[in-house]
């Protein structure tokens, strides 16, 4: 069955630095991967979707990569700010190459940006 693994340890970085979070998946490469942010007591908020034929996608200070050879996605936050502190979740669809599908979520990586 498919699995998603993320940085198991919490990540602490200094304000202004680039945070890099890792998402590794098993079995076949999904048609896309999603990244979400979750704050305590709130539901996840969708950030970015990257398709398997896209090597990289950017949105403001966020950058996501998708490496089907390594079966890995990297999530970067440049010029990090304390407001970026949250848990970041990686998600993949369960069924291969469908437009609609349920996704499974990784356990999340807790990021703390220290002023």
């Amino acid at each position, binding site marked *: 069955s498919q699995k998603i693994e993320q940085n198991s340890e919490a990540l602490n970085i200094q304000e202004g630095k680039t945070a890099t979070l890792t998402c590794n998946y098993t079995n076949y490469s999904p048609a*896309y991967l*999603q990244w*979400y942010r979750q704050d305590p007591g*709130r*539901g*996840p*908020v*969708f*950030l*970015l*979707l990257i398709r398997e034929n896209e090597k990289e996608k950017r949105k403001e200070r966020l950058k996501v990569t998708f490496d089907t050879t390594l079966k890995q996605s990297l999530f970067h936050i440049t010029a990090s700010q304390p407001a970026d502190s949250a848990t970041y*979740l990686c998600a993949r669809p369960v069924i291969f190459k469908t*437009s*609609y599908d*349920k*996704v*499974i*979520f*990784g*356990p*999340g990586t807790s990021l703390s940006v220290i002023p």
Partner: protein
Amino acid sequence: GAGVSQSPSNKVTEKGKDVELRCDPISGHTALYWYRQSLGQGLEFLIYFQGNSAPDKSGLPSDRFSAERTGGSVSTLTIQRTQQEDSAVYLCASSAINYGYTFGSGTRLTVV
């Protein structure tokens, strides 16, 4: 409304009672999902509705759990004879095709 609305936001119930959780998705989103999240844990898939297709119930943990979606819009998740292990935050999400999910704020269920 502009977002996914869930009610109630908090629910405390006695063990053995039935509970109903409601989700009002974004208008026009044909896909609706229920997940639950236990304290400090990841999101666990429960059930998925897509248009008029039969729902994907593969994540429901037991036959005490059921869900329906009326008129392709509002969904209700029902838990019968609640147990303490059912305590969690129940999250609903909806999505448009080829896009990310929009989650509600969740219902925090506590079974005492």
